[in-house]
């Protein structure tokens, strides 16, 4: 809990896994409480400020790619927000937008589990060709997490963040389309959920 309000949520919607006393649930788009908790958790722990619209953009369009983790006291301690889009009209690209774990609950494998849940859902529902994200070059923890799963640094983006730090763009290839240059791929139809 912090000054912005309680992180408690008793909604049992979309339970997908239980690991020890931690429950992993899909975000409930009908729950304003979950929306508030998620945006507060992210605002408290990510350096880049996001407007309420950004949260709406992700959570309303791709609720199926947002997962939360709750502890035994129903407190939301972790969240992952993702989306999919058609990259240059030739690849279906999953994109992990935000991942936040309450510092008290870090190093317990929660982030890894959330990433895996999102990846599995993207592959199963939207048959993504690749999954991408950006992270600060100095964020060793995030790099360790994603690279332990096989994400690869494909690009360094100069002064990408407001902090002026560079970013690495990481990609996890999923289908053969990930291995071909854009110019040599045929166009794809827009995915249903975008």
């Amino acid at each position, binding site marked *: 809990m912090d000054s912005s309000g309680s992180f408690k949520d008793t909604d049992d919607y979309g339970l997908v896994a239980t690991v020890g006393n931690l429950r992993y649930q899909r975000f409930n788009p009908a729950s304003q409480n979950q929306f508030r908790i998620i945006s507060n958790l992210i605002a408290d722990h990510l350096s880049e400020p996001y407007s309420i619209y*950004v949260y709406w953009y992700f959570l309303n369009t791709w609720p199926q790619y947002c997962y939360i983790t709750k502890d035994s006291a129903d407190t939301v301690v972790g969240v992952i927000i993702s989306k999919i889009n058609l990259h240059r009209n030739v690849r279906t690209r999953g994109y992990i937008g935000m991942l936040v774990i309450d510092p008290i609950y870090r190093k317990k494998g929660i982030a890894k589990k959330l990433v895996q849940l999102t990846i599995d859902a993207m592959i199963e529902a939207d048959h993504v060709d690749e999954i991408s994200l950006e992270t600060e070059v100095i964020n060793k923890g995030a790099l360790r997490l994603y690279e332990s799963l096989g994400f690869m640094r494909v690009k360094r983006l*100069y002064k990408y963040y407001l902090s002026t730090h560079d970013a690495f763009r990481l990609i996890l290839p999923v289908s053969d389309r990930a291995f071909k240059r854009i110019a*040599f791929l045929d166009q794809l139809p827009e995915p249903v959920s975008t």
Partner: protein
Amino acid sequence: MNDYVDITEDFFSSISQISNNRVVKSPFFDLLEGTRAIEINNPRLDTGLIPNELSAAELNFECSKPISESELSGLMNKLFKLLMSWFSSSSLPLTVLSCRYVEDIVHGYTMSLDRGIETFSLGDGVYNRVLKSFVVGLSKFIGIMITVGNTVLYEDEDITTRNMELDFLTDIMVDDVLNDLESAIGLVKRSAAQHKEHIIKQLMLLQDLNSLPILSNLQINLFGVPDLRQLQSFQDILNRGIECLKFIADHKQFYETQELPVGSVSKWVQASLGNRHIPGDVYDIGFDETFKQMTNVFEQLKQIFRKTNYIKDIEALDLFLKYDIQHMVNEYHVINKGIFQLFLIREDQSILGSVYHLSDLTLDLMNHVNVFNCNVSNPKTWNLNNADTELVMDALSQLLKDLEAGVYQNLTVYANNRCRQRQLINKNLLVWDSLQVQSENFEMEIYNNYKIGDKLSDTDENALPISSFIYSTKLELMIEFLLIGIELELYREFEIYSIYWYINYLTKVYINHSTERLLKFNKYKISKIVAKKKKSKNKQELEQKREKLTKINEALQHKIDYWKGFQRLINSVCLLLNYLQNQKMIKFDDLTANFITSFESLFRLRFKPFESIGVPSQLTFAQYSSSFASDVSQDEVINSLNMAKEALVEYNKSVTNDNEKQWISSLVKTCFSYILELKGGKNVFEVSPGYNTYFPKFTAKLPVIE
């Protein structure tokens, strides 16, 4: 309140349409727009809350109020710091525009129809008038740099403008600004100021800053005798700037203790003008950093300008661009990156403003590899009727035009940040690969249809000179693309071997191509000239051609010698990593054991940029997997490193460019350091920065055998 319109009713009427958790938005309002959206009452996003945190002095600030001598000097000092803070990845609203005087001048100019320099005013006091000239000069310089940035730099990477839709004195001439600053200097001299020299140095420095962009209009006599008068004249401006900077730095105590008018610098502008960005604190990099960076700007330009005046030939131009610009770009201030790019290639496609144009450069680059004295590039030697000549000429002209575009693309790479350089090279790979296909088709077609072409040797093999030149350029781009990735720390431990292994392959192909096609073809042409000379009456012309070809081959051989030394080092790194794997110091397979994807997939993703390239053939994961040797010994690695070191030391003896010499020395040091690391280090495998950006330090200690 009279300026505001009550929209309460409209607002509630609009939001009544929102239902079921849906977002109502324009189709043009995308995620990017969303990240810039104001969220009312969120202090991290709502600039409308800024006035609440401003003091009464900040809210009620009056620019026309008379200022003191101390405030004048203090403000100019602050503005220099804010200016250089802008170039340090901040934005105008958080730096220079946070000064109310700058906002007043620029906003007034933007809104006014009468836009002459004489219309500006910041009050009638003598120091206010001097400040006005300074603010106008500063704003003009910012305007120039915004234009430079828009033309050749990347917004939000090299420079972050966010100009709040203000016009930074576009139509005011630089000469008028310089004269106005000169008048201000006169005003100070005639004033009762206690510290005239201190103020005048600040005004002079601003004059010199405004003179820097002149460089992008100067005309260099490329490959010829330097215009010493021009050289001296620009050096004088730079030297005067450096002197002013030294004076200011030496008098830090004075400048840093001068006053600022209360409320003159604040977050006011973020709330008072149209602002599409989130709130931020005023950013100031401090006195020392400001004047250190500014000194670098002047010193670097001085060096660049001097060097360009003494570029004697195409090889020297190539080395200058590679070692003095591309490899040094991280050291260059963003002002210089922008100005240099405009200085290098002009709107009329002249190189360094000389009579030498992009088309000349393209032809010279080809001639200095292998196209000189070829049948294909010399229509006089074609034995065709007029109609066919025209047909072939048209096709050749089109190819040359496309080649020029490729050369232009390469020229735009040099002064960019290293991340962009890699991305641009990646794009250029496609350009040069297409050029190779186009050129091969052209050369084969004219050979088959018109018997235009050149033999590589006494055999019937077609030399395909233009295609060979293109292939050579493409290979260099492929190698550079992979190497920059090392510098940018894109490769992790488990794949670092695969990268060097691939570079090793490409460098071998490059050396083989250079030796077996380029050198060989030039030698063949020389032998033909020598044979022809014996029977020819025109011995002098043939001798000149022979001499030129001999020089071309000497330069080519010199380049090959570098690549041979470099390839030996690359090969040594492969051996070193192979050896460490054999000794169980690195276990490439273990590092990828928990991946959701396979190493083979990552290998394919990594080399995707080469996927569409037919020649050289792409290496496969199977080839990679079988590339490890089981019997690499420590002695073998050390011997290989010693051989690389000797080759590079030998090559360095003939190097004249200072920065190239330093580059080669760093490669030699790399060889030494790897040998030392092999003989003793830590008990884990680590990759850390080394002596050369393309060769990190590998730390690994062998397990003790009991």
